[in-house]
């Protein structure tokens, strides 16, 4: 029910892309990059996604496509790239051997930190700060994964085909917000709120969002209980939620 290409897009933009938010939210991540020269890494997947991540002044930014970079890591297939993400494939740069130290040290520390937040030890979640960062990172990952599935997965594309143009605001009250922009059935996630949503879906608390992400509560019941608020062009939400159902399959 899942395919390697869609997973590669998710791994690129939703998983590695969340390094942006990790660096923004967690001082430990920023500390890893302190006093380091700006450096950029390009991941280039044959018949799949390509993106360039730049680390500069403690911040991280991902840009789509093959850009100017210090380290370039090509992958011969989506499966190989997915293997790097799940730790079964060792990445081999085609450019930037002099920067290999960053890849082996700082970059690995960052991805390990991201993994700690994305697949947390239950004991760590008792710490409120950790809980908030972990849940926020999951939120951004899920929001970006929605767009990748809507654009790549066969069933996801069917759902996207049924979506009208407009912006969907997805948010946690008093927490992270994202906008799923729909244009001609193509989805792009922007990791901030839109000023003019055509539809919205908001989780009432970050604790509720966590329970939903972990599958501990039922979203339909939460709507009835008023814990999830929906509004506007509901057909957009309806179709987005069908894609959301697939996110769990890919991120499991």
């Amino acid at each position, binding site marked *: 029910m899942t395919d390697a290409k869609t997973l590669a897009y998710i791994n690129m933009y939703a998983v590695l892309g969340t390094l942006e938010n990790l660096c923004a939210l967690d001082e430990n991540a920023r500390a890893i990059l302190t006093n380091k020269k700006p450096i950029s890494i390009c991941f280039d997947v044959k018949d799949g996604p390509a993106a360039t991540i730049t680390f500069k002044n403690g911040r991280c930014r991902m840009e789509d496509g093959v850009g100017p970079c210090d380290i370039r890591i090509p992958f011969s297939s989506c499966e190989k790239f997915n293997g790097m993400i799940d730790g079964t494939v060792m990445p081999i740069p085609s450019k930037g051997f002099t920067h290999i130290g960053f890849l082996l040290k700082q970059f690995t520390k960052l991805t390990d930190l991201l993994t700690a937040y994305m697949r947390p030890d239950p004991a760590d979640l008792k710490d409120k700060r950790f809980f908030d960062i972990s849940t926020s990172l999951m939120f951004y990952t899920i929001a970006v994964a929605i767009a990748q599935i809507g654009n790549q997965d066969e069933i996801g594309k*069917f759902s996207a085909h049924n979506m009208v143009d407009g912006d969907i605001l997805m948010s946690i009250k008093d927490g992270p917000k994202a906008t799923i922009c729909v244009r001609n059935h193509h989805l792009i996630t922007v990791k901030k709120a839109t000023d003019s949503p055509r539809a919205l879906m908001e989780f009432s608390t970050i604790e509720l969002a966590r329970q939903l992400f972990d599958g501990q509560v*039922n979203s*339909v019941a939460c709507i009835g*209980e008023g814990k999830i608020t929906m*509004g*506007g062009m*509901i057909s957009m939400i309806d*179709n987005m939620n*069908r*894609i959301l159902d697939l996110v769990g399959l890919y991120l499991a």
Partner: protein
Amino acid sequence: MASKYCKHDKSREWYNRAVKVIPSGIYGHLGPAEGLWIPTTSWPFFSERAEASYFWDVDGNKYIDYMCAYGPNVLGYNDPDVNGAAIEQAAKENCTTTPSYKMVELAELMVDTVASADWAFFAKNGNDVTQAAIMCARYYTHKKKIIFVNGFYHGVSPWTQKLDYPGVIPEDVANNLYIDWNDINALKQVIAENEGEIAAFIATPYLHGNFADNVLPADGYWQQVRKICTENNIVLIIDDVRAGFRLDLAGSDHYYGFEADLICFCKAIANGWNISCLCGKDFLKSSMSGLSYTGSYWMSAIPFAAGIACINKMKKLNTPAMFREKGIKITEGLKAAAENNGFDLVVSGEPALFYLRIANDDSLFIHQDWVQEMVHRGIFVTSHHNHFINASLTDEDIKRTCEIADDAFKTVRKNHPECF
């Protein structure tokens, strides 16, 4: 006018109990999620009693109900004639080893009432008979594919759902073909592309889908469809579950001047007593007989007795004419109230099943706001589904509805100064 705002504390208490023991608390179209009650805090979740055009929720709030249980309330809740027949039958028998003769009486009445019907087959829900219609068409033609109209709703069987719905696998919908409403060329094209493979074309008599303005058939549309289906040995199925008996007691195909091969009824047969019916042409009777298709309660006598009483009363009252007249009256009143307050209320579909949309924004936030203000004030309408008229709706109900609509529009206008 002063309006009392409804509160729903007890509804919430019951809902909190429900979610512990019932998946999603209230599932399906009567529930807050699928019913699109936005925001849910404005809506009652559970009712306590109902009479005529009204129901009272568990908090004691009274509503003038324009959803009519999503259709089954056709004469008025607790209609004395229909309930009287049901109670009388209950005293005799209901679910028995051999069916009651009442089944034959109702079948005869259906065949006499529905213009295209040569026979009647009974079940419980609309989905039971749309499923039966598809199976019958496939058995008769020995073909697999079915043509649907985009925006359709024909029930909850996997084949009626979409590829991305939970629990549906691609194979469930692999034989579904989709075309747009009122598009004869698309129909011709899909038939040409699937020559010799199509068992049936299934559609509602007009496009009364959710989330979008409802669309009537173009002039000559159904006559052309009828001709094309006959020429290509495609069974023409009309899903009259929602509109059936509300436009025409002879069937909505009769109303639009054509004859279906199979026509599905449910909601308006028995004023809330649980029964559905597939009617068909004689040439399909043998195929229908051959299906392995039944249910434990499909031949229960109480709904048969209720159905006979209901259909006879609808005939006596000429309810389709009544629904049209009341539908026009209420929608004209609502449009006037909207216009008085600077809103563009679009009314679409047949007046008996009117669909509403405020067109001042393209996001429907304003529409949803107005609908919840209506419900808050005791007028039960819903955001993205057609509405229903029942025979007990009075002029006084309509007048009050329009007054409340005006009040609700005033509040919405105040809440949305950006639009004015």
